[in-house]
């Protein structure tokens, strides 16, 4: 591996972290953190596994967009502004409906938001839910995500002939702060549970708390990007 490619790898990863810690994606980061953290206590590595899948989902979205732009006649600037304008708008009702589904507001037979319900995927350990969440959250481009992904990562990937690895690392970088926070919270929770009886209470309140965070984030995105009042 050349020094230049090594520098590109670090740049991609760090640029992803930089994107994630900016104020703009705060709403989706909080929703993701809550969703990943709610698996705390279900099994030993559940939070790490869901965090990893969330990161992979984000990475897959960025890789897919890169390939889409290269293999199609889409104009990157037009596509970038389209995603910035409509990505967050589309995510607003999706988050509200997903939160309502988690609260059981559609009745027990309804399976429209099955991806957000880990219990429906017992066979695969609920893997698809976090993967899917990462993928669609990545599509809600903030201005900083668009600027850094289209302005830094894609040109860097083109210069280094690395259309797969650099967007992948950027995607992992965008998830890193959320996953690291979730893992730290999980470790703290496990330490506390060892001396108290928190685990049972956590399981009871985690699902509705996650649902309300999703709804709050969805309403926030709607007020900001659709109604323009925030």
């Amino acid at each position, binding site marked *: 591996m050349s020094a230049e490619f090594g520098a590109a790898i670090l740049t991609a990863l760090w640029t992803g972290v930089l994107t994630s810690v900016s104020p*703009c994606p705060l709403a989706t980061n909080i929703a993701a953190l809550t969703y990943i953290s709610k698996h705390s206590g279900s099994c030993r590595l559940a939070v790490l596994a869901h965090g990893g899948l969330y990161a992979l989902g984000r990475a897959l979205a960025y890789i897919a967009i890169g390939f889409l732009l290269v293999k199609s006649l889409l104009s990157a600037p037009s596509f970038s*502004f389209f995603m910035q304008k409509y990505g967050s708008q589309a995510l607003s009702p999706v988050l509200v409906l997903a939160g309502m589904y988690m609260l059981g507001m559609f*009745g027990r037979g309804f399976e429209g938001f099955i991806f957000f319900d880990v219990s429906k995927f017992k066979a695969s350990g609920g893997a698809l839910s976090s993967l899917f969440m990462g993928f669609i959250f990545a599509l809600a481009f903030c201005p900083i995500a668009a600027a*850094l992904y289209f302005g830094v990562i894609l040109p860097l990937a083109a210069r280094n002939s690395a259309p797969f690895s650099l967007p992948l690392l950027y995607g992992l970088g965008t998830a890193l702060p959320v996953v690291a926070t979730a893992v730290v919270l999980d470790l703290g929770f496990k330490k506390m549970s060892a001396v108290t009886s928190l685990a049972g209470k956590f399981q009871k309140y985690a699902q509705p708390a996650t649902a309300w965070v999703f709804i709050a984030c969805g309403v926030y995105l709607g007020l900001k990007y659709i109604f323009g009042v925030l």
Partner: protein
Amino acid sequence: MTQEKCPAGIACGGVKYLLIGFVFFSIGVAAYKAASAPADPQAAAAPVVAEAAMAPAKTSEPALKVSAAKTALVYYFYTNTRCSSCKTIEAYTRAAVEKDFASDYKGWKVAFNGVNIDEAPGKHFIQDYRLNSKSVVVQKFSGDKTLNWVKLEKVWQLLDDKEAFMTYVTGETHNLLDGK
């Protein structure tokens, strides 16, 4: 609504219909805004033409330029949706221009100019400068003739350091103006 249909144990009825109302209303507003937006032929998926990347911008702010003189505009391109980082970029860029280009630089008059690219007069800049997001671009003019330009890609990475940000804007502008 019964407790069985609402296992979360909350007052589901009113909240449920309020949220459903919010979802439908927000989808309706988003669809209405999208449908009522002015048609923009450049916003459609268009082939990427290599030459377009180097095409000079059209001059749409003649009032800001001095005719037959060496001028430069430091553009800040924004959209209708503002964010805190975007406002910071605008403030730092404006501050750099006002601080370091209050007087001419080697005969170049430099001015700051904010342009909303969601509005029809500014839309062409998206393709002219291959913009991906809110951006800062420095464009040189000789009279009404457009010369070289540079897009300041690092502004998003320097947001946390005002001094470094302003030094970057000033340095890149100097480099452009010093070049041919």
